[in-house]
């Protein structure tokens, strides 16, 4: 390898190394400034001057900055002369390299120029560029590390319990306690839903469990927990409404419908029995008449009610059908959709086999119609409609095997509808229960540590310790501020908890509720909280709806009012 080629080869290697370091420098530089901006943004958000940036937004910004820095660094033009000068400066080469590069560029071929290039080539070959251009922490890189630590600190410090205020610790305790309660409810509900194969409520229970776990672990603060609980409640309510609207509105209960069905079945049974008795009596009378008259009466009966042999006793298929109908009614009473389904499946089998007489089929049609009437207006209105349709088809069409097959299938489908109707309504019910549990939990969080059982809220009246409503007492009780000297006219963003004491119902029952807020000293409250809330919410909603509030703040305003909703 000639000295010139050696020089060129090694210079290329040096250029690559320098380019790498320049790229790292630029990346650090752009990351530094972006991270500084992010830290300022985070700080502003912590001081509540701006909304809190999303972690994904910050990560995206930093990634973009890093990428831009890399591109700038990688596209920087670094000439061999620059690298030669830098190498000369970093090593003991005494301008050998820069001189050689210049001589090469000038195309000098004098012996002394060649000797110079050979000297430079021999020297550069001994260099280890990792040592000549080591990776050093530049000022930007050090700044970057410091800023990263600051940013992490801004993220983590407020979440480290050591830095929490007393109030916040108390709040987090409440949140954790509430998380434990909700988690237990969610687990039970999830198990129940799994057993009953209720998809929607199982999903909702799982979601609630996740939130409860986060609360139990202290991963969310009180405000966030309340907002998330509120959102989940709303979601559940919407889901429940959707499920409920899929089912018919319940005007009467299934128990009531079962009673009606049973009565109708008994009535039909009696009619059948009476008809059998009447037929038997008629036959006895006929035995005393002349044979011609007997024959003519028998002929008449055949055309009307079937053979005299069948009439006295219902067929086995009919008996089974009757049994199935009874089971269906009983299942209705027990609200057992599975049993209902099974009963209808049995009935369908009997109808399909075709062992019942025409008369029996007619009786069965009437009983099905009775059943449909009984179910009308219940949560199984859809089943009612399907049974009604079957009954009408049985009445209108000729019952050949093909029709019977169709009717049996329709009956089976009605059985399945029964089950799905009940599942939907149970799903809705379970969702309702979950939503209720969440609402109660949120209310308890909002009220603080010492609280009334949810069922008792709203029953109290503003009374003084003597049991009389009067001056300085709100409907929830009188104001007792533990730190009156610290009171200020302006409500701060994180006011201390204020105890509002009161007497509820009989003396000794739950005298205290803790609210967040800072009522002004000396102001006598005569308005219940829920009234104030409603008025203020309405007052805030109007500007929101009229778009007086900037779009960026609308959600915050809504969230705030959701969080203080009584």
């Amino acid at each position, binding site marked *: 390898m000639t000295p010139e080629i050696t020089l060129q080869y090694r210079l290329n290697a040096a250029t690559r190394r320098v380019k790498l370091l320049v790229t790292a420098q630029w990346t650090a530089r752009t990351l530094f400034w972006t991270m500084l901006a992010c830290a300022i943004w985070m700080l502003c958000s912590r001081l509540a001057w701006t909304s809190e940036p999303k972690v994904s937004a910050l990560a995206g910004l930093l990634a973009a900055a890093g990428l831009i820095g890399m591109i700038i660094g990688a596209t920087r033009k670094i000439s061999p002369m620059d690298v030669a000068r*830098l190498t000369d400066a970093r090593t003991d080469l*005494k301008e050998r390299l820069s001189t050689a590069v210049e001589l090469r560029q000038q195309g000098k071929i004098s012996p002394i120029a060649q000797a110079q290039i050979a000297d430079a080539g021999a020297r550069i070959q001994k260099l280890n560029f990792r040592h000549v251009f080591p990776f050093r922490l530049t000022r930007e890189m050090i700044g970057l590390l410091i800023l990263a630590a600051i940013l992490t600190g801004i993220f983590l410090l407020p979440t480290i319990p050591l830095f929490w205020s007393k109030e916040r610790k108390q709040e987090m305790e409440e949140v954790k306690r509430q998380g434990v309660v909700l988690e237990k409810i969610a687990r039970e509900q999830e198990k129940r839903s799994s057993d009953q194969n209720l998809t929607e409520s199982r999903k909702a229970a799982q979601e609630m469990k996740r939130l409860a776990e986060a609360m139990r672990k202290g991963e969310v603060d009180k405000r966030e927990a309340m907002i998330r609980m509120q959102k989940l409640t709303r979601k559940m309510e919407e889901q429940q409404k959707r499920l409920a609207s899929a089912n018919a509105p319940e005007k009467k209960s299934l128990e009531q419908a079962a009673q009606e069905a049973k009565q109708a079945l008994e009535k039909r049974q009696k009619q059948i029995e009476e008809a059998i008795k009447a037929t038997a009596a008629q036959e006895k009378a006929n035995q005393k008449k002349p044979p011609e008259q007997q024959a003519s009466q028998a002929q008449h009966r055949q055309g009307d009610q079937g053979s005299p042999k069948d009439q006295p006793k219902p067929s086995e298929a009919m008996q089974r059908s009757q049994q199935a109908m009874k089971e269906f009614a009983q299942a209705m009473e027990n609200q057992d959709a599975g049993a209902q389904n099974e009963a209808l499946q049995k009935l369908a089998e009997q109808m399909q086999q075709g062992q019942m007489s025409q008369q029996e089929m007619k009786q069965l049609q009437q009983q099905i119609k009775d059943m449909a009437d009984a179910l009308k207006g219940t949560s199984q209105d859809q089943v009612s409609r399907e049974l009604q349709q079957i009954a009408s088809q049985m009445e209108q069409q000729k019952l050949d095997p093909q029709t019977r097959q169709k009717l049996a299938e329709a009956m089976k489908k009605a059985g399945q509808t029964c089950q799905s109707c009940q599942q939907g309504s149970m799903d809705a019910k379970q969702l309702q229960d979950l939503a209720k549990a969440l609402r109660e939990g949120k209310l308890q969080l909002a009220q603080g540590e010492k609280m009334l059982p949810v069922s008792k809220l709203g029953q109290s009246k503003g009374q003084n310790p003597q049991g009389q409503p009067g001056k300085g007492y709100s409907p929830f009780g009188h104001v007792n501020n533990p730190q009156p000297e610290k009171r200020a006219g302006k409500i701060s963003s994180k006011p201390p908890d204020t105890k509002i004491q009161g007497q509820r119902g009989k003396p000794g029952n739950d005298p205290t509720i803790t609210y967040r807020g800072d009522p002004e000293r000396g102001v006598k409250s005569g308005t219940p909280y829920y009234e104030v809330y409603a008025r203020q919410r309405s007052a805030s909603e109007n500007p929101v709806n009229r778009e007086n509030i900037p779009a960026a703040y609308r959600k915050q305003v809504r969230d705030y009012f959701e969080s203080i909703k009584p």
Partner: protein
Amino acid sequence: MERQEIEQQAAAFRESFQRVKSEVQKVIVGQEEIIQGVLTCVLAGGHALLEGVPGLGKTLLVRTLAQANDLKFSRIQFTPDLMPADISGTNILVETAGGAKEFRFQPGPVFANIVLADEINRATPKTQSAMLEAMQEHAVTVAGVRHRLEQPFFVLATQNPIEMEGTYPLPEAQLDRFMFKLLVQSPTFEELSAIVDRTTGIGTDPVTPVIDGKTITAMHQLARQVEISSDVREFAIRLVLGTHPDSEAATEPVRKYVRFGSSPRGAQAVVLTSKVRALVQGRVNVAYEDLIAVAKPSLRHRILLNFEGEAEGISTDSLIDSILVRVREETKVKLSV
């Protein structure tokens, strides 16, 4: 000429330099910088002015150098009554073999390879100026006849900075002819001890000539071939321009204390002596450190201080230092990783 040949010449240059230096150091104790400076100056084909108090070995140094170089040496002791003809020579009336009388040129002491102009500032300006032509053009003109001096030709002058009474400081034009102005310092304790030992004993090793005039001329030619990159050349130019008070490159002290800066001879001296130094250091290219090393001896006598500078006792070396700092900053590599 092949690359290898140049490399051999460069090696021989360094070797010759070291050998001459070693020979001189047999007699002269210490004064490393001065020996190196004088040798550099000689190999660059320039003249040197040595300034120092009496008794520091200036004359001995020059004489030893002449011995080591196997060159014709002459010494001129400058005194106020010294006449130009005493230096350059004169036409004398001589009788030929036929008994005829004729004027014949009798060369003066300047007709030597190495001329020691001892205490040059003691002669009158008229006599001093007699050296001008010899130093610049390597020739003297006597009675209208121009006589070329033998090559190589070097003037090594000395002057005493004290006892200025009755002296005639060298004019700027003459100072500019000197490539280097070297300041001879008093010896250190160890050096003085060695001097005492060496000069009060039986004797010293004799100085033997190690190079001749031809070799010196060849070395001189080789030095001129040494490559200098544009960056390094720019450094030298900035350095010289920095000595001019009205230049943009001038530093604040230069603006304040300097009346005139260096002439282009200063830049020539800096670059040429740097080339010699580069070869001595084993390189065939000039480096910044070469320029820095020769900056002071090349420029210190070319900077003319103004009244304020003189009054405040400003040394031209400190001004050169300030210029060097600035030029280094200006020529710093921009790319940093």
